[in-house]
């Protein structure tokens, strides 16, 4: 631990630490990125109020998000290396005493815009717009009923995400943090008539709240140690006094981690994400795959200077990320609901991102966030399209050969493309981002994280396997499908089963002829999605492909800097170079063109010391990674396409012997984590609560309070016999009283007197 401050000071001196931001009042229009979603949220509320029956809320939201996206694009052009602080208006700020360093608290509504913020907001608003377009059609069956509430909540979500990412101080981040929690609560609980949805929403909010407590305490601790919560001032304060060794300053990263893991569904607090699939699919895509869950990654990236101070914290982040990835992958392999599988895969990929952060490469993690956002959104949306078309059917055992189902060809194709990206097939965008993470894992200065590299490779294989397990089962093989039971309520009870909205009937007639020969599914006709779903899918697919462009460019022409790396480098996350990586270099001011080149070159050079299986890190990871991916794909090809029976046979075999039974049972029952929490935390707490309630009612209220209340009456009853009614009785007590008093006086006072 003592080494940490020394190491840090060297790094800070060498690496270009977080640049001091200067105020830029002229950039106040950047506030539009927050204002527009807020305005559209309020307008949706108004539409709800006026009981608007059209798709206006969707249009409002899409326009607002588009506007926000445009603002961010313009901001991208404007913001250079140095971050800018834009003050919108004062929020919580007052001083006491002489108003000096620890004698005042300011947390105004101001924006801290640097490259990282812009990078993050780009894909948040971009994907937001596309998914809002997708949702406009997906939710059209709810137009009169919940439509305004849905889009209102989505707008509020985007506003909150904007506050979180662009916020200029930790309190703004906290505001965004809880705001997205609220939005996810409203959206998961969208189908509020279903108890499971309400329970899932409650669970999500409460688990997030546990994380928020960690964040709040971290915030208090930061103020106590550094006297400020504003980013700009915080970086200076950290540079001035890196970290007093006393435990409080060291505790900040651990508390921040708790907050991050709560929001980004990591190991201890991931249980809410699978249940969050109760919400409509666009919500799952936007919030629970692409944007909200990355908030944790953003938090650690933004607060990286604090993490650098505490290498153990970094190691912990890495380990938690790695283990979560492994755990989620194993569970994902054994699930049958498509959305649940993608949910567990999201948790797993997030594990990778945290692994990346833990080993020091904020660039690798951010890059993976960028790529993952696109292809995971693609996978969710295609699953949504399938669900939309097949009346809520999502069980991979009941769907097969969708590629050949008319109307679903494009959707299936894009889904398969998504699968390739998720599996990190060589030369896909995900391959490069995962490669960065694993390389850093192997070459990290801190030996403890090296083994995580190997775990990462294993998980890569598992990921490939379960991705293509879904891909082959659902999209390839013989055409066979059964309608769902309006499972997700989107064909609402008034929308008869398999009933015909405009699209379905039209599609139904045309396809009726070919289905005759299949026959076994009676009159049900799946209806393919219309343009509002297809266009966003295609765009997102293109986005997924282009997400890899920065690495392609670096691959082709070695000296081109990776765009994402430049974004991340010029921010408080400053390239997240692991201490070792930078130690060997001279000053590193603004990462200009040549520096990146030098950077790239020296990577190779630096790796010589860390040989992996005899090869240098990059080539090793590249080869091993693609090997793992292809192996995973082949295994799932055999089990789930060529010989589907074999999968069941394998399962029966594993179940047979006691030694391996636990694997299958565990995986399918999600390692009983939910039940564990229930048993260890919820039920005892419930028991204690009931006991306390009984104590409060019986002991405290009925017992003590009423008891004390009845005390005077009870004492009164003791004296009651004295009032017997007989004159002599009274006379005796009176005379006795007088005699007693006289005797007492004589005895005490007069004995001594004369």
């Amino acid at each position: 631990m003592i080494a940490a401050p020394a190491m840090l000071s060297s790094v800070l001196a060498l690496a270009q630490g977080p640049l001091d931001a200067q105020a830029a009042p002229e950039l106040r229009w950047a506030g539009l990125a927050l204002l527009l979603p807020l305005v559209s949220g309020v307008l949706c509320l108004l539409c709800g109020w006026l009981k608007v029956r059209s798709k206006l809320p969707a249009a409002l939201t899409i326009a607002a998000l588009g506007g926000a996206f445009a603002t961010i694009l313009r901001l991208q052009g404007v913001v250079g290396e140095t971050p800018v602080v834009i003050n919108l208006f004062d929020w919580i700020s007052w001083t006491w005493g002489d108003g000096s360093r620890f004698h005042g608290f300011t947390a105004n509504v101001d924006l801290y815009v640097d490259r990282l913020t812009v990078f993050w907001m780009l894909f948040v608003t971009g994907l937001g717009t596309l998914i809002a377009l997708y949702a406009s059609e997906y939710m059209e069956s709810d137009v009169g009923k919940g439509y305004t509430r849905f889009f209102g909540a989505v707008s509020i979500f985007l506003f909150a995400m904007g506050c979180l990412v662009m916020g200029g101080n930790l309190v703004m981040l906290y505001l965004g943090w809880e705001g997205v929690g609220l939005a996810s609560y409203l959206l998961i609980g969208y189908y509020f008539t279903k108890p499971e949805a309400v329970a899932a929403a409650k669970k999500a909010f409460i688990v997030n709240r546990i994380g928020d407590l960690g964040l709040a305490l971290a915030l208090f601790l930061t103020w106590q140690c550094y006297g400020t919560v504003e980013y700009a001032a915080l970086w200076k304060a950290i540079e001035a006094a890196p970290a007093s060794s006393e435990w409080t300053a060291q505790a900040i990263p651990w508390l921040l981690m708790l907050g991050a893991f709560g929001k980004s569904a990591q190991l201890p607090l991931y249980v809410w994400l699978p249940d969050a699939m109760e919400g409509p699919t666009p919500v799952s895509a936007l919030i629970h795959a692409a944007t909200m869950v990355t908030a944790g990654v953003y938090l650690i990236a933004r607060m990286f200077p604090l993490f650098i101070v505490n290498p153990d914290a970094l190691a912990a982040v890495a380990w938690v990320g790695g283990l979560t990835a492994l755990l989620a992958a194993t569970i994902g392999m054994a699930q049958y609901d498509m959305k649940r599988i993608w949910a567990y895969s999201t948790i797993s990929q997030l594990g990778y991102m945290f692994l990346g952060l833990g080993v020091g490469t904020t660039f690798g993690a951010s890059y993976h966030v960028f790529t993952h956002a696109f292809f995971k959104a693609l996978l969710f949306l295609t699953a949504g399209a399938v669900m939309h078309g097949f009346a809520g059917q999502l069980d991979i055992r009941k769907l097969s050969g969708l590629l050949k189902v008319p109307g679903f060809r494009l959707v299936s194709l894009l889904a398969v493309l998504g699968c390739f990206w998720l599996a990190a097939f060589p030369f896909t965008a995900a391959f490069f981002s995962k490669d960065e993470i694993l390389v850093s894992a192997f070459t990290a200065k801190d030996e403890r994280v090296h083994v995580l590299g190997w775990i990462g490779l294993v998980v890569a294989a598992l990921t490939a396997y379960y991705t293509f397990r879904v891909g082959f089962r659902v999209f390839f093989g013989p055409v066979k499908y059964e309608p769902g039971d309006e499972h997700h309520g989107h064909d609402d009870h008034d929308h008869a089963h398999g009933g015909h909205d405009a699209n379905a009937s039209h599609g139904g007639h045309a396809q009726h002829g070919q289905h005759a020969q299949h026959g076994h599914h009676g009159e049900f006709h799946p209806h393919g999605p219309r343009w509002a779903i297809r266009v966003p899918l295609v765009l997102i697919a293109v986005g997924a492909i282009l997400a890899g462009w920065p690495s392609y460019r670096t691959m082709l022409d070695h000296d081109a800097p990776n765009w994402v790396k430049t974004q991340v480098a010029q921010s408080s996350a400053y390239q997240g170079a692991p201490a070792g990586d930078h130690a060997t270099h001279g000053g590193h001011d603004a990462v200009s063109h040549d520096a990146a080149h030098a950077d790239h070159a020296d990577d190779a050079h630096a790796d010589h010391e860390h040989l992996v299986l005899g090869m240098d890190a990059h080539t090793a990871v590249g080869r091993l990674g693609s090997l793992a991916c292809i192996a995973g794909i082949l295994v799932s090809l055999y089990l789930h396409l060529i010989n589907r029976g074999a999968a069941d046979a394998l399962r029966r075999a594993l179940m047979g012997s006691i030694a391996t039974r636990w694997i299958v049972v565990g995986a399918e029952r999600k390692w009983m984590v939910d039940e564990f929490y229930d048993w260890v935390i919820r039920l005892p707490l419930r028991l204690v609560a009931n006991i306390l309630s009984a104590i409060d009612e019986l002991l405290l209220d009925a017992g003590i309070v009423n008891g004390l209340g009845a005390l005077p009456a009870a004492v009164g009853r003791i004296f009651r016999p004295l009032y017997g009614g007989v004159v002599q009785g009274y006379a005796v007590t009176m005379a006795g009283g007088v005699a007693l008093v006289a005797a007492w006086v004589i005895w005490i006072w007069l004995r001594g007197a004369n």
Partner: protein
Amino acid sequence: MNPIDPQLPPGDPLVMLGLLASAILFAVGIVGFLSRRNMITMFLCTELMFQGAGLAMISYGRQHMDLSGQVFVIFILTVAAAEAALALGLVVLLYRRKETLSAEAWKELAES
């Protein structure tokens, strides 16, 4: 000492006897009042107590060679007489009601 009141030397036999008698009278009065049930006897006991107090006054008067004690006794006698009239009127009223002179009969008013 009160300048205008010549004080007999303490321990004058007549005064001591008087005080003793008054104390006894008072005690008998109280004991009689408590033990007897008959209302007239009870009244007579109160009279005894009054006389006891009167005797005490006279004895103290003797000791202080002061006449106001005796003046007080005259008033006590008149008041006692008034009370006697009132008491007997009351006792007659009660007797006419319950045919008994015992105070035991009257215990209807009590702590219910």
